[in-house]
């Protein structure tokens, strides 16, 4: 019976090797949560900054959830991709963060990492691009299998989210 509004934007990304970036994003929740309105996943446009390092998307996020419990708080998953001048897309990073649980305006920096292959694959990646990707991004959430991954640190995605919570205090939730 409690409701949560997530209203904000994916501002942009910086710190990646190349700059022509786009982002695929999605919000993942537990079973007790129900999406009342809004799109819970999407893809931004490709942005190529002329000056500076940060690629700006300003992609809107506007979600309205209803929930029966606190478990399964919404989590945001991001995939940053690079599109080169030939139109090929390669993965530049995965990022995961929780949606804040306190009401107000939050500026979130979500860091990203990219899976690494063997040294042959890394060599090929320098010349041709590409690289290993996760078979299904959802296996991250199970948590148990992450230790098998070998990754490298990539850039950071900036988000601004405004959180509005309704009726949570009626059920004794203090946040």
């Amino acid at each position: 019976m409690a409701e949560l509004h997530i209203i904000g934007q994916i501002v942009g990304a910086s710190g990646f090797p190349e700059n022509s970036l786009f982002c695929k994003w999605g919000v993942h929740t537990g079973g007790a949560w129900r999406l009342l309105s809004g799109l819970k996943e999407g893809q931004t446009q490709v942005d190529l900054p002329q000056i500076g390092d940060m690629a700006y998307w300003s992609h809107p996020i506007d979600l309205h959830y209803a929930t029966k419990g606190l478990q399964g708080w919404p989590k945001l998953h991001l995939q940053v991709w690079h599109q080169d001048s030939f139109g090929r897309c390669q993965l530049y990073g995965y990022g995961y963060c929780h949606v804040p649980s306190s009401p107000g305006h939050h500026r979130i920096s979500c860091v990203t990492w990219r899976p690494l292959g063997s040294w042959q694959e890394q060599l090929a990646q320098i010349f041709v691009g590409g690289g290993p990707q996760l078979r299904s991004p959802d296996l991250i959430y199970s948590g148990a299998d992450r230790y098998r991954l070998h990754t490298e640190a990539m850039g950071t995605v900036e988000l601004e989210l405004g959180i509005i919570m309704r009726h949570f205090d009626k059920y004794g939730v203090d946040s």
Partner: protein
Amino acid sequence: MADCWNTDTGEAVYRSRDAVKNLKIKVRIERVTSTAALSQHLQQEVLSQQDRGAIELETLTSQGQTGDNEEELVVGWQEKLFSQYEMELFQNESACQTPLDRQYHTEVKALNRAKGRRNHRIFTYTDHDRYTNCLPFHQLQHSTDLLTTTKSSPTFLAERMASVRHRRQDRRTMDCSIPKSRIINWEPTEEFVKNSHVVNNAMQTMHIMGDLGPSGRLGQKENESLLVTIKTDGTGTVIVKPDFNKGKEPYRIVTEGEKREVWRLTVENISTTMKPEEKDREQNMYKDLYVRHKDYLSSLVGQDFEMPPVGILRYLMNGEIVSAKGFEYDNLYIHFFMELPNNWSSLPFQSLSGVTQTCRTKTLGKENVAFFSYPFSFEAFYMSEKESEESIPQWPVLYFKVLSLDSWQCYRTEGYGYLLFPAMPGKHTITCHTWRPLQTGTVSALRRFFIGGSPELEDHSYVRIPGTFKGERLSRFGFCTETTGSVTFNLHCIQQAKSFVDAAMMKKRRQKVFDHLGGFSQQGAICTILEAFQRARRKMQEARESLPRDLVTTTSQLQIESSA
């Protein structure tokens, strides 16, 4: 006598949620001639004398004149009324080029076969006519009433402003729908560029014109003059230029040509207003709709919410391990686990430990940083027992260990650290610094460098307070460590307890730091509630005893319900 003219010919903006097709306007033009002025003057004199005598007067209204010197017409929205010129033009089929022209041709023929058109001098240009776009521009050419000297061409600004209002390109912006394909116009025309720089809705326009030529010589294109312009966009804004007279003086139109004649223009809004019953019905319908929508939304949401049992505090922490920086070697990973002190419990399937992925660092600024972005979620319950008030509650601790794995599959301990769960709910970004145990001497340093063994802690809780510690002073004398890097966590903490609800309902939010630290000073609130309940129960029992026997059975039912 001097007539007063209404010189306020600017546009008026009206807003209405009603459909624009209900708009009806009455337009009246009458020519100001000497005889007309005289007859009007006489009429006024007569009217002022009428109460004195019983002079019945047929005023000097000559029928022949009124037919041509005045006209009153009711015009609906986008109602096409033909002028004399258009009637003649659309009679021959050869003049018709577009389908619209052909449609007009059929209409004109039908009109000719029937009684003829109902308008005489007043006619309209609707949105579809090609004149609608360029009319104001023509008006500009004849804007001689601004200056005494005749300046033939309008200024640059006037030119631009005239065409700003009319956008014929995209007529479908009634609901601001954006086309899904062809979002970018790669070759815009100059007019498109000019119009797109102004944020403007597309308007549907209608011009009511008057043919103000001398009587008998109607149908000349030069004698047409613009009377009223009505514009609307799809969202309920109606712009009328000039505004309705509303009982004030009529507007004045001066014709061009050798004979500069003066005409009087009166515009009136005679759209049928809604009857009060209908208005009430509409309002009730809206109210009903909103109430139903609200009910629908709340039915989607549902009424229940999961709550912990009474007297138990649920602590929920969603967090992520963000990054680690400043460590000696590369390819770092973090191994962490949580420790729950006394009175804390967690669900059986709750995993209390985890390992992140191995991450190769990159250089950011002066340090090497590894990004983990590892989300975790943790839930624990605190049982509030009867205990002394002085004891500060113990919060769970997260112990972590940073390790590095190199290409030879050697593990090295990079650092130990701990994180105390925050007592205040909300968002916390915490950076924990780490250290690693050091053995003095070169042997251990060589070992660590070559084959990767390094001293490790047996009991991880040694990082904070060892579990085996009993006493008052913790001494770590003789323990040698080296400072290594730091790890950043993002934590979102939520606390939930039934007593928070009671505190809110009783409006007793005590803001003392200790209360917030405890989070269960609500314990005191629980006690007072229990006491109040006991008191009420005692009172009810006493009252029950004083009641006669036959009422006892019914009240006992009620009591069972209230104590449940």
